[in-house]
């Protein structure tokens, strides 16, 4: 009888060939039509190569035949979770070039909308991230509260997602008479809810095991790869445009730029939760002090920017969004470039995910909060 012997192998001794796995473009965890070419050794990720362009729509070319009043309405189709910030970026850029001073009321309204939008965006991210990690509850909780914000948007500007609210010169309509009451009611409700949501994931053992210390991005790498927004701040890269180059009503409010130090998946997650608290603080400082007056200055239908180049940066839910306009004095821009936060963030993934397991790749990608049309434009 042959002798029975137990053999233990460590994972280093089991050798497999490298193989390529194609993730996407239709894959539930890529949040859209991103395609990742992942090179694996066993379960270990050796290399990630993002392939994009599955939703490229040539917005930059389209802007060359649109007027400056029309362009903002196209931009909320890029980063639809931060539609208002995108509108605002173009509006600010045009206002800056024309040296138009926007009424104070419009500035306050814009900032409140910015922060509401940020909460909505982070909420949606939170519920999608929970789903990536296998927690379905977050999906229902997150979208439930998001509906309240969408109701507020809808009351004022008629749209739920693609707001088209900020236009060069101010905002499109005045706020709804119920706006202040509704926002305050929402904040009161959400302040009570958010700690509960935080506990749902933050204290969860499985969640912590999967995220703590996983996918670390150092500060130097974050700067070198241009990773901005909550993902960059989690690594300690102070990149909040609201602090660096304040716009709209941000100079009037006191708030903290929330920073992390670890730069791992957990920090990126937790930082967004804390940012929602901070956003509520900002709204509370502004909501009672909206000044009376006009909500927009009158602009001509066809606006011509003086010759030159203009660059405007704003902070969206995902990071630094930039609008770069080269104007030749005509009614259409000569060249318009949108610097989207997701584009730079995405290409840092290879650097982070290398060496981790493929399941961690999904978590890492989740914390980057990728919106694919924002990347592809």
């Amino acid at each position, binding site marked *: 009888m042959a002798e029975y012997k137990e053999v233990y192998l460590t994972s280093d001794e089991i050798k497999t060939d490298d193989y390529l796995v194609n993730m996407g473009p239709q894959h539930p965890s890529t949040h859209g039509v991103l395609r990742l070419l992942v090179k694996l050794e066993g379960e270990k990720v050796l290399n990630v190569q993002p392939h994009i362009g599955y939703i490229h729509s040539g917005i930059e070319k389209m802007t060359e035949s649109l007027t400056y009043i029309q362009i903002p309405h196209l931009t909320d189709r890029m980063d639809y979770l931060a539609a208002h910030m995108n509108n605002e970026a173009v509006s600010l850029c045009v206002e800056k070039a024309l040296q138009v001073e926007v009424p104070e009321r419009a500035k306050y309204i814009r900032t409140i909308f910015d922060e509401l939008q940020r909460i909505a965006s982070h909420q949606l991210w939170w519920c999608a991230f929970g789903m990536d990690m296998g927690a379905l509850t977050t999906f*229902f909780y997150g979208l439930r509260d998001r509906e309240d914000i969408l109701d507020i948007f809808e009351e004022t500007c008629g749209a739920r997602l693609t707001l088209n609210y900020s236009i060069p010169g101010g905002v499109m309509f005045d706020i709804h008479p119920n706006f202040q009451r509704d926002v305050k009611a929402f904040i009161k409700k959400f302040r009570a809810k958010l700690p509960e949501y935080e506990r749902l994931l933050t204290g969860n053992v499985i969640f912590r095991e999967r995220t703590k210390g996983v996918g670390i991005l150092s500060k130097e790498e974050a700067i070198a790869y241009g990773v901005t927004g909550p993902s960059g701040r989690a690594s300690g890269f102070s990149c909040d445009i609201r602090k660096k180059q304040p716009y709209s009503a941000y100079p009037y409010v006191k708030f903290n730029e929330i920073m992390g130090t670890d730069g791992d998946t957990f920090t990126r997650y937790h930082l967004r939760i804390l940012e929602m608290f901070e956003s509520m603080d900002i709204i509370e400082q502004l909501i009672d002090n909206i000044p009376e007056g006009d909500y927009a200055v009158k602009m001509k239908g066809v606006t011509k920017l003086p010759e030159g180049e203009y660059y405007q940066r704003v902070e969206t839910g995902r990071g630094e969004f930039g609008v770069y306009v080269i104007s030749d004095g005509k009614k259409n821009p000569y060249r318009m470039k949108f610097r989207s936060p997701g584009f730079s963030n995405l290409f840092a993934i290879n650097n982070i995910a290398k060496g981790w397991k493929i399941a961690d790749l999904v978590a890492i990608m989740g914390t980057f909060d990728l919106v694919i049309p924002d990347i592809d434009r």
Partner: protein
Amino acid sequence: MKEKIGKDYPIIESHEGGSIITTKLDDLLNWARSNSLWPLTFGTRCCAIEFMAVGASRHDFSRFGMEVARATPRQADMIVISGSINYKMAPVLKRLYDQMADPKYVMAMGACAISGGPFYYNSYSIVKGADHVIPVDVYIPGCPPRPEAFLFGLMQLQKKIRHERYFSAKKVKK
């Protein structure tokens, strides 16, 4: 005593005692099919977020039987094209559609999927309407369509399914 169940299913009749119903096989199939439409998780642009919102707490399309979103086309009954399709994506969409098992249904959600929407003019890479790629059953206009509009579109699709004939096809007169 014959009792008709629901106004949408006039042909399903339950008899006394409740344990016997008479119906046509077609109607039974359509009844089952139209009430368990499983969509494919396929979202390209902003409309996909609205699609998620319809699936979540407030609007909740599982009331209509559109219960679980499947991540693989082989298990899905329908595909909701939520967003624009460009020339790079079109072959992928076609392939996903081909992988789905019959009977399969397609809903075009939003202006982008119907005609190219905001990207109709001057966009060099957008296909002007998803129906250039795969056949579409129901079009839901809007940019993005409201959740109510989506639910209405879903009901239209169900109506369409209920009128399908497999076994009792009318003879074509020569």
